[in-house]
């Protein structure tokens, strides 16, 4: 019986590469949230208009306030998560140099 050739393991990522990967993934995720709340929500604004949220028509509320709060949340999440990634990178770099 033939043993299938093992898939060669990818070379381990350097801390900088890992950081860039985290950063890219986060950016992509948050950009898709941004896209959905902006363009998809407005595209269906007429359908959403029938829903009422504490007396506000939903699509009006979203465009006048809700979307802005989501934007702010996007920037907050990005800032906090990137800060953490940055600290991990510095720690990893120090360990790297310590070896």
């Amino acid at each position, binding site marked *: 019986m033939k043993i299938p050739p093992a898939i060669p393991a990818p070379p381990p990522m350097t801390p*900088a590469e890992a*950081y*860039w990967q985290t*950063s*890219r993934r986060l*950016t992509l995720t*948050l*950009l898709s949230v*941004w896209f959905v709340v*902006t*363009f998809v929500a*407005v*595209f269906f*604004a*007429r359908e959403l*208009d029938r829903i009422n949220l*504490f*007396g*506000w*028509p939903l*699509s*009006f*509320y979203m*465009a*006048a*306030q809700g*979307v*802005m709060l989501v*934007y*702010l949340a*996007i*920037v*907050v999440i*990005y*800032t906090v998560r*990137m*800060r953490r990634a*940055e600290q991990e*990178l510095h720690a990893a770099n120090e360990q790297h140099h310590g070896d």
Partner: protein
Amino acid sequence: METNKAFFRRLTRYYCWYTFGFIVFLLVLAVLEHEGMPRAWIGYLFLFVTIALYAGIGVLSRTSDVPEYYVAGRRVPALFNGMATAADWISAATFISLAGGLYLQGFDGLAYIMGWTGGYCLVALLIAPYLRKFGQYTLADFLAERYGGNFVRILAVIATILISFTYVVAQIYGVGLITSRFTGIDFSIGIFLGLASILVCSFLGGMRAITWTQVAQYIIILFAYLIPVLWLSAKHTGVPVPQVAYGSVLPKLNALEQRIAADPKEQEVRAIFQARADDYDNKLQHLPRSWEDGRIDAQHHSEEIRRDSHASLADIKSASRALSAYPKSIEEAEHKWNDAKSYNLSRAQPPVSQTEPFPGKDEEAADIKRNNFLALVFCLMIGTAALPHILMRYYTTPSVHEARKSVFWTLFFIMLIYVTVPALAILVKYDIYTSLVGSNYAHLPDWVYYWASIDKANPLVSITDLNHDHIVQLGEISLDGDIIVLATPEIAGLPYFISGLVAAGGLAAALSTADGLLLTISNALSHDVYYKVIDPSASSQKRVTISKLLLLVVALLAAYAASLKPGDILSMVGAAFSLAASTLFPALVLGIFWKRANQAGAIAGIISGFLMCVYYMVHTHPAFGGSAAGQWFHIAPISAGLFGVPVGIGTLIVVSLLTPPPDERTLALIDHIRTP
């Protein structure tokens, strides 16, 4: 690190004292008004005290040091940079016209609210941290370093100047409007007064002085925008938090809108406008005969009245005025009558619903509205993420993390105002629908007379009893959008010093934006063109001096352009966003996120994006001789970036792939900016 903290504490202390001082100043004015100080004096006091304040901050932070002059020494804490950027961002148009736009256009106006805040997501995620890590002085610096070569730099400089100059002319125009409306001084004197304060500030201290002035200006803007709305909100809802409370007014406003749409008296007024529009339409169809008949009629009428011994002087005057205003040629008649027809048609429409998205007579019309809304949001967002004077600000923070944090603060401080804008529009609308509509012509409020008399040629507000029933109908009121913010204090019944405060806020908004823009233009010229291209050996002293001289020249040019009162200035500002999006955004973002992007690609991308955008505008905007018939998918010319951005990105990618990849040095630079 410790010095940073100490610096932050010191700044906080200064600005707390400043805010306290400003409140005391307001209280003093309140007392003075109570004691009977005339209105004009309150206007003058606001104008001169604030302008002197900005100039004073400029004098205190004067500098000739290069990093201080260009990027405020890169030690502006995130919070203060956010505040300064917010002031930089909130222009005369935002402060004065945004709420008016919402009032007049309903849901459609929200495109500006969304576009001008959502763009900051792109700034935060795609640009600001990388630009800060790169750490030079201008946007062109980055593009030139990333793609190599002075040609890219020159292209970036041209784009920067085109975008910023149209924008700055609009700001200075706004300064002239506000000063002349509130103090009665001449429009051009107002422009030069404002200019003096901008110059003292940026001339002496560059970015450093501008930053600290903008923080001070933001505080004034915030006070000026919030106080009247808080008051209105307390008056109509009993809750002085307008951002939350205006929800309870919405259902009442909807009911009012429906009642007004069905009211027979309102329909009567709308029918009058419809009849006028039909009359113009009839005349247009019978050109050129209708023009000749009309001219002969006007002549006859004028002669008859002059012969009639019973005619009053006023009748004779109005007849001869009608004769002299009569179109001189058939072309002029066609133009004038077309305008008159569309004006009357627009007033024959029932009021726009405030909250219904994309109202249209059928599915197709509503879809066109929705597509234009989306296109405008797209262009405003991408444009925001490519505006040189905003992006430049993120060079001034101490670190990459501070740059990210400072985008958060920017968005936060912008939101404080933007969340209030719809509240203001809706509360004012409710006030007008309830207290002005249905009132008697004998008891019109004072503010109507006051604002009607400000600009006789283009009155900001006009109310005429068209159906002679002595009752004000909504259809009889014609409001200019700008009045919504400027007259709010009076509509809400607040004392006059609050009106002065609103004017000072509008002035601060215009001046702070103009400051940032002028510095961006003069830096692009002195740093990118003079130092990097013409004389790379220039001493730092010489560079700063050149920059200051250029600032003076650009400021005077902008003031001259504004004093010509270009009519289409607002649509030009809208165009600046599309232009920024199409030219700079593709090269910036792909430069960071795509290593394969190279010099040839960037050059082709910038040029093709620019050409596409300009072509569409010229092709479709009446001001450039185009017409709506040339539109693609019914997209308005202001959203030309919808086509410019994909063309720019596509060209950049295709040309880059067809030419050799960038060299080792460039790849190292990209890795460098990607690590914090």
